[in-house]
């Protein structure tokens, strides 16, 4: 799969980019590159995960991430089962650990979990022997989104090192921001986070990022900008300005982009709130790579599914030889 290096992937789970080395991430991105080519072929399917079962266990509704994983797993010839759990029924229902152990007993191989609680994927990973892929846990991490953003950037600009990447929006509550920060800084990209003061979490500078509350400053040197989805309905936003005000002060518009680098790349993890964090003109404009991100997401998730399942197959072999 990879040409350059002898692959050493040892992780049963993918819980976050914080816990991966640069080499780990490089391996995933390179592998995703090979899978990305497959997606442009006529027959978009490889047998890598034939006979394996991937369970999408989603405690939050997220059609796009779930579908992306589903497509990725099917391109690898895996069987896919989707389980959607209503958050409201969690309290009376079985625990996440019990659900995980049940899925394990059903002889599934990989659980892709989306959960509203930070740390949920890590807990599940500790409690089952099968692989767990974090598809977003609370405000913590969304590693495959981070990877696909990095993949998209690297594909567009040829490298990550030295790039100026600005992340704009609700940093405090964003798992996408955290995964991007961990991943990009490992490659020597210069990351700036930009948000109103209330949406900057404490001591985030210790993650190696620059902090600004001024959108023009965030745009000035940026090679790329990652625009986060704003959710004004959440509790924590009560102390916060209105949508209109946010758009006025932080919204990414054509006018603002005019002051930025001409070929600045505009990314968004989706779904887009048009007119809230980004104008339609920008979302659909020449700088936008939003739809490419969606396609790249499949390739990245194929790579992740592939490598975590390799790690488990290796584990099993080790057990037999011992």
């Amino acid at each position, binding site marked *: 799969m990879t040409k350059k290096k002898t692959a050493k992937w040892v992780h049963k789970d993918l819980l976050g980019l*914080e816990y991966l080395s640069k080499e780990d991430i490089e391996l995933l991105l390179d592998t995703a590159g090979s899978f990305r080519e497959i997606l442009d072929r006529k027959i978009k399917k490889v047998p890598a995960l034939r006979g394996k079962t991937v369970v999408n266990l989603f405690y939050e509704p997220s059609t796009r991430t779930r579908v992306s994983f589903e497509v990725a797993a099917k391109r690898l010839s895996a069987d896919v089962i989707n389980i959607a759990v209503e958050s409201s029924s969690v309290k009376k229902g079985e*625990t*996440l*650990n019990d659900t995980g152990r049940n899925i394990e007993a059903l002889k599934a191989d990989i659980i892709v979990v989306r*959960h509203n*609680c*930070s*740390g*949920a994927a*890590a*807990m599940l990973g*500790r*409690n089952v022997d099968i692989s767990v892929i974090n598809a977003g*846990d*609370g*405000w*913590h*991490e969304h590693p495959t989104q981070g990877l696909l953003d990095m993949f998209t950037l690297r594909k567009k600009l040829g490298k990550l090192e030295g790039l100026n990447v600005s992340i704009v929006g609700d940093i405090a*509550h964003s*798992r996408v921001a*955290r995964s991007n920060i961990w991943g990009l800084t490992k490659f020597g990209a210069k990351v700036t986070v930009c948000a109103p003061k209330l949406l900057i*979490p*404490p*001591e*985030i500078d*210790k*993650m190696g990022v620059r902090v600004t509350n001024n959108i023009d400053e965030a745009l000035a040197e940026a090679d790329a900008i990652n625009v986060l989805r704003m959710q004004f309905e959440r509790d924590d936003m009560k102390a916060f300005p209105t949508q209109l005000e946010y758009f006025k002060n932080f919204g990414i518009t054509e006018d603002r982009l005019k002051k930025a680098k001409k070929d600045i790349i505009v990314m968004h993890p989706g779904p887009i709130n048009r007119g809230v964090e980004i104008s339609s003109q920008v979302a659909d404009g020449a700088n936008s790579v939003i739809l490419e991100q969606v396609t790249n997401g499949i390739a990245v998730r194929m790579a992740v599914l592939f490598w975590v399942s390799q790690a488990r197959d290796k584990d099993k072999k080790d057990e037999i030889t011992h």
Partner: protein
Amino acid sequence: MKLLIKNGRVIDPANKIDDNLDILIEGGKISKTGKSVDAKAETVIDASGKIVMPGIIDMHVHLREPGREDKETVFSGTMAAAKGGVTSVLCMPNTLPSLDSAEIINTMKAIIKNTANVDVFICGAITIKRQGKELVNIGGLKKDGIIAISDDGASVDSDELMLKALKEAKKEKILVICHSEDKALSGKGLVNRGFTSTRLGLRGISKESEYKRVGRDIKLAEESGAAAHIAHVSCAESVEIIRKAKKKGIKVTAETAPHYFSLSEGDLLDYNTNMKINPPLRAKDDILAIKQGLKDGTIDIIASDHAPHTENEKEIEFEHAEFGTIGLETELAVSITELIGSGILTWQELIRKMSLNPAMVLGIDKGTLGVNKDADIAIVSPDKEWIVDKAGLVSKSKNSAFIGRKLKGAVECTIYRGKVVYKA
């Protein structure tokens, strides 16, 4: 029935003793201390190479009975105490119902009488149902047997009511233990506010929520003249506020728990819910400040804040898990590991903070190895290393933040009122 402890290194801060001595116990009391005590005893314990110290008095323990016997009972909690070298505990009033009435105090006393393996002293609530609205009958409950009051788990938010409680406590000569937390500031927080809360994507609990309330509680203590005790000090700012208050001559004492000088927020990296504690594990700098506070006497007491919770309440998503770690079985070893040897405390000082000081603060005739005192004794191998193993815990709940940790110092034997209640 006579019991003789021979050849141990006896450390007794109350009598400024640190010497190889024998201790003879008769009728549950210490009857003789000296070099080569010559007596015929039914039981002789050879304590050569071991430290013989007054049993630990842990003034911050949640025994959960009545109401949550699935987490812990007076019986199981005091078994854990005995294993940890603890011979007296002060049980906190956040039971179900709260320890806020004569009736429930009497129930509690009966449970203790029938099931406790070591001494259990009772801390009553400050307010009815610990709701911070209406004071309990402090004088009445004192007559019923409580020796301190606290709304632990909650702070009395109203300055006016807290002052009233302190004034009443002064009149009744009873200790007020302050759980100093401003809920309006700590809110739905889960871990220390700062890099760790950001990194884990969890709501933060600011240090401010603690030290501002510590400041208020001390100010009200000063105004009332009552004896106030600040529970579970976790951050540098609180230590500094208490230090200044003591310099000023205000009647305040303070306690910290072993996890605040041994674990930091960084240990939470894998969302270990046993490390979800309130107040939360703080930063490395705070650990240093707590140690300094212990060293210079700002912090008088080490207490476990033993807080048992069932697996169902802990082996779940971090934000839904209960706060607290158990601590009775590990508090001495964690303290030895962290404080002795590194020069923070001498043995005399450590033992004082775990037995004599709490006895004095609580006003109980304990914490010494003097003749005619209760024979409450812990015998400890000071250098023995062991690893905290979940299966070895005797507390009904297994939620220890120290599972897997290598500790130095092991309790070999615990004697309570002249009876061996634990033997390794």
